[in-house]
């Protein structure tokens, strides 16, 4: 019995509900929500270390043994993501304190953020397919509220598309679960994996797996990313940062779980399709990132490129590539949050979203400029920073399995990432400053500190790769050997 495993979900939910009673006390809302996220960060770090000693741990809700009850399963992969999620959410909350404005803060902003984080953490921790669906919905319902909060016209316009596409994909998710339940007759993931292995993944099961691929592709923005750049560029900066850092990553997590734990018997079909989808995502994302002059669109398309890149690791599916994907997933959550926060700050400071109308920002905001520069290098994968380890390992995996086209695409996409961000840097930060000294909008410290914290985390992840590697190696080992997970859950 490991009741501590439920705390990353219960603490945000309970705090979120309590904060509803303190609607007009903004100060209480701020401190309580920050305290909740920091405590979850600490707890998940503790559980992560516990897993290193005890192996994969599980918690059966209400003492119903699997596969009959629902349960939470904690392995290193889940806990690494829970830890990163909580950390990013805590840092984004600090940005929200200084940027959001009283009107939105009083409309239950903090409860919604906490419930969204609870949904994300629940999705990472659950060991039951239907529970995964429910946690997805918790996360999505909170995100619907966050994307519309404030009610400006572009927000409402994009939220209709966002809600419609997610309702559709949730319906597909439900239908896929129904098909799978009808075929093998269980919903517990470990039990599912066992039964699929017994049945030998028949063509029917492969079709169901492709339906799941479609569903999570829509959620993660893998190939089916058409809804993403629009909906991620309209909400307030801090909401966009949370979306960009967390939401697509849950879809990626679900894809990894599905195709390493359940449907790993026919890689020549499923993993080839994932590879093709990842390749096209990389191409499409790269074109999008260099095609636009709207800074928010460029940043959103960078999310798409990262999704394609991480899924290359899953398509290749060697231990090295999976390890690389995990590194890159953690790195991407930190750095995308930072990128969205910096881009949002630039838009707020200059009052325009077009990069050819900004110029010479480094003269007035040197710290912001150099932070952007660091984040840009980290995203491109320059060695001492955090993006490097993931890229090198995914590259190594691709070479090992001879996937040279994917290797080429992922390396070229890195150049496109660098080019698209360098274009922002050269256009906006370099050049003559067009604003006179009196008109310069002051940059509050509350905006810089979160960006700086995320940059420090990214640098730390890069330099501390040696320190993190045991956790990542353990996560990759569990993913590549599904029986570790099954044994821990169905415990002989």
């Amino acid at each position, binding site marked *: 019995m490991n*009741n501590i495993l439920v705390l990353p979900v*219960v603490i945000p939910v*309970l705090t979120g509900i*309590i904060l509803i009673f303190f609607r007009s006390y903004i100060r209480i809302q701020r401190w309580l929500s920050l305290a909740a996220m920091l405590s979850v960060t600490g707890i998940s770090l503790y559980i992560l270390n516990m897993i290193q000693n005890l192996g994969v741990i599980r*918690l*059966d*809700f209400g003492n119903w043994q699997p596969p009959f009850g629902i349960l939470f399963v904690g392995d290193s992969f889940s806990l690494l993501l829970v830890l990163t999620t909580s950390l990013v959410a805590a840092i984004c909350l600090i940005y929200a304190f200084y940027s959001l404005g009283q009107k939105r803060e009083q409309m239950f902003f903090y409860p919604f953020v906490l419930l969204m984080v609870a949904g994300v953490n629940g999705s990472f921790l659950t060991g039951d397919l239907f529970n995964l669906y429910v946690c997805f919905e918790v996360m999505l319902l909170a995100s619907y509220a966050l994307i519309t909060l404030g009610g400006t016209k572009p927000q409402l316009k994009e939220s209709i598309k966002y809600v419609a596409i997610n309702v559709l994909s949730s319906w597909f998710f439900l239908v896929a679960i129904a098909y799978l339940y009808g075929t093998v007759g269980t919903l517990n993931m470990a039990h599912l994996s066992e039964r699929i292995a017994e049945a030998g993944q028949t063509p029917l099961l492969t079709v169901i797996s492709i339906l799941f691929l479609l569903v999570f592709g829509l959620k993660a923005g893998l190939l089916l990313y058409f809804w993403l750049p629009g909906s991620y560029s309209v909400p307030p900066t801090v909401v966009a940062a949370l979306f960009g850092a967390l939401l697509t990553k849950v879809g990626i997590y679900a894809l990894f779980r599905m195709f390493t734990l359940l449907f790993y018997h026919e890689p020549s079909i499923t993993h080839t399709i994932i590879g093709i989808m990842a390749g096209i995502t990389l191409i499409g994302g790269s074109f999008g990132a260099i095609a636009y002059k709207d800074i928010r669109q460029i940043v959103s398309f960078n999310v798409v490129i990262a999704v394609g890149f991480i899924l290359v690791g899953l398509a290749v599916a060697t231990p090295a590539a999976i390890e690389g994907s995990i590194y890159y997933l953690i790195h991407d959550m930190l750095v995308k949050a930072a990128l969205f926060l910096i881009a949002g700050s630039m838009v707020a400071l200059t009052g325009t979203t077009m990069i050819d109308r900004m110029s010479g920002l480094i003269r007035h905001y040197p710290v912001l400029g150099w932070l952007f520069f660091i984040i840009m290098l980290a995203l491109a994968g320059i060695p001492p920073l955090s993006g490097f380890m993931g890229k090198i390992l995914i590259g190594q995996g691709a070479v090992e399995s001879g996937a040279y086209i994917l290797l080429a695409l992922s390396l070229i996409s890195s150049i496109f990432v660098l080019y698209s961000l360098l274009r922002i840097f050269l256009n906006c930060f370099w050049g003559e400053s067009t604003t006179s000294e009196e008109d310069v909008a002051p940059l509050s410290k509350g905006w810089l500190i979160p960006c700086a914290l995320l940059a420090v985390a990214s640098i730390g992840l890069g330099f501390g790769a040696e320190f993190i590697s045991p956790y990542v190696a353990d996560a990759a080992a569990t993913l590549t050997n599904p029986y570790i997970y099954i044994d821990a859950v169905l415990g002989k």
Partner: protein
Amino acid sequence: MKINDVILQTVTKIVVFIILTMAVYLFVSGHNSPGGGFIGGLVLASALVLLFLAFDTETIMNRIPLDFKMVAAVGAFIAVATGVVSLFFDVPFLSQAYSYFNLPVFGQTGLATVTIFELGVALAVVGVVVTIILSISEDV
């Protein structure tokens, strides 16, 4: 012309009590027959909606001075709290207890802590339904 809805209001006054009884019946019978917190809450909310239809919103809100957003929050809190309480008893999250008691009027009665969880669900449903109805009607 003055609209006179004396028949609607008189019938409502009687029917509301039937609906409320039905809601309580559905709520407590959920453990062994169809019913439970969700459907009990919906029926209870339908009684309130009928009141809002027969009389105007202000009259009812004066008589039942509840902020239904808070009702929903209290319900959600109760539901989560029943799960969290099991943490203090050193049993897995969401564990339930069930036992028989000799109550004065009912005789031997089985009481389960799942009823408290369902109470939370019912309150959350009532709060959400009434909040939706009221916030839509405010705009018209």
